[in-house]
């Protein structure tokens, strides 16, 4: 199993996967944008501002999923001492930061016409800012600490501590009386209060962003593998 995730084994698949994603990405993007901006109907309460949700919601999901993934990989790294898991975490982190930033910015752009304010120190919004800070700390610890082993340990610790924030973000709308509306989709039991005419574009845009994430992740992961091999070129 451990051998299966060795960089050398994975490397030959990276190029093929990248080519496959590149070949379908623009088709899926155009279909997704057509549904999100043209075909899907305006909401009876939010009007056309609901279209912002087609970027905001998938971004928020990806930001939470990325951090959970990093934290779980960090715990596994501590327990199993597999260095390759660190490479995966490092490659996921910039994506998490990007989508947390996008979730906050697009949420703010939705908040102005809907709530009448760009920002409120609401539980969900504040916990998302905390998540952004954890991402920044995680990436900075990897960049600023020169000793690689120490950098990996510190960043893993940040990820594990930051994991506490994930259920806070998820359940903040249930635990506190917040400006942010409660969840419309429950992934755990598969229920949704969103009409299919809006759910379909949402899923399509999620697919677009997931394909983009896969592409960036593969490029980052490939860079990390080459960086390590380059360091030990004479010992290969």
């Amino acid at each position, binding site marked *: 199993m451990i051998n299966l995730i060795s*960089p*050398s084994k994975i*490397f*030959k698949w990276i*190029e093929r996967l990248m080519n496959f994603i590149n070949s379908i990405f623009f088709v899926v993007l155009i279909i997704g*944008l057509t549904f999100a*901006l*043209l075909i899907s109907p*305006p909401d009876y309460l939010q*009007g*056309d*501002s609901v*279209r*912002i949700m087609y*970027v*905001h919601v998938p*971004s928020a999901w990806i930001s939470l999923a990325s951090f959970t993934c990093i934290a779980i990989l960090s715990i596994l790294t501590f327990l199993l001492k597999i260095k390759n898991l660190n490479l995966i975490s490092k490659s996921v982190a*910039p*994506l998490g930061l*990007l989508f947390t*930033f*996008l979730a906050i*910015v*697009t949420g703010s*752009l*939705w908040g*102005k*016409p809907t709530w009448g304010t760009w920002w409120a120190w609401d539980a969900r919004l504040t916990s998302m800012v905390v998540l952004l800070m954890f991402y920044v700390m995680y990436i900075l610890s990897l960049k600023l600490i020169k000793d690689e082993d120490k950098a990996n340990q510190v960043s893993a610790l940040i990820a594990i501590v930051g994991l506490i924030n994930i259920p806070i973000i998820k359940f903040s709308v249930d635990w506190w009386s917040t400006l942010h509306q409660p969840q419309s989709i429950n992934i755990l039991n598969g229920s949704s209060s969103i009409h299919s005419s809006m759910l379909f574009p949402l899923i399509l845009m999620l697919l677009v962003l997931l394909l*983009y994430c896969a*592409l*960036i992740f593969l*490029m*980052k992961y*490939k*860079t990390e*593998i*080459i*960086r390590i*091999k*380059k360091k030990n*070129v*004479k010992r*290969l």
Partner: protein
Amino acid sequence: MIEKLIYMNGYGLFVWLSFAISFFACALVYYKTYKTLKKYEKAFAKDLHKLSESQRKKVLEKSKVANQVFASYNKSI
């Protein structure tokens, strides 16, 4: 039709700005990631070039990663 698409009943500015910011942020990250990957590929291939013929042959036989990077770099130049 086009006017309706642009103005979106007064929400156009917010909707288009959201999509534009997302698009540019994603494009920027893609560009930076791609540039970094190419930079490392080039530097690694150069390091392999610097090795003696026999050393390079040994490395390319042993390491699949080195082999692929070296091959794709030679193809691109």
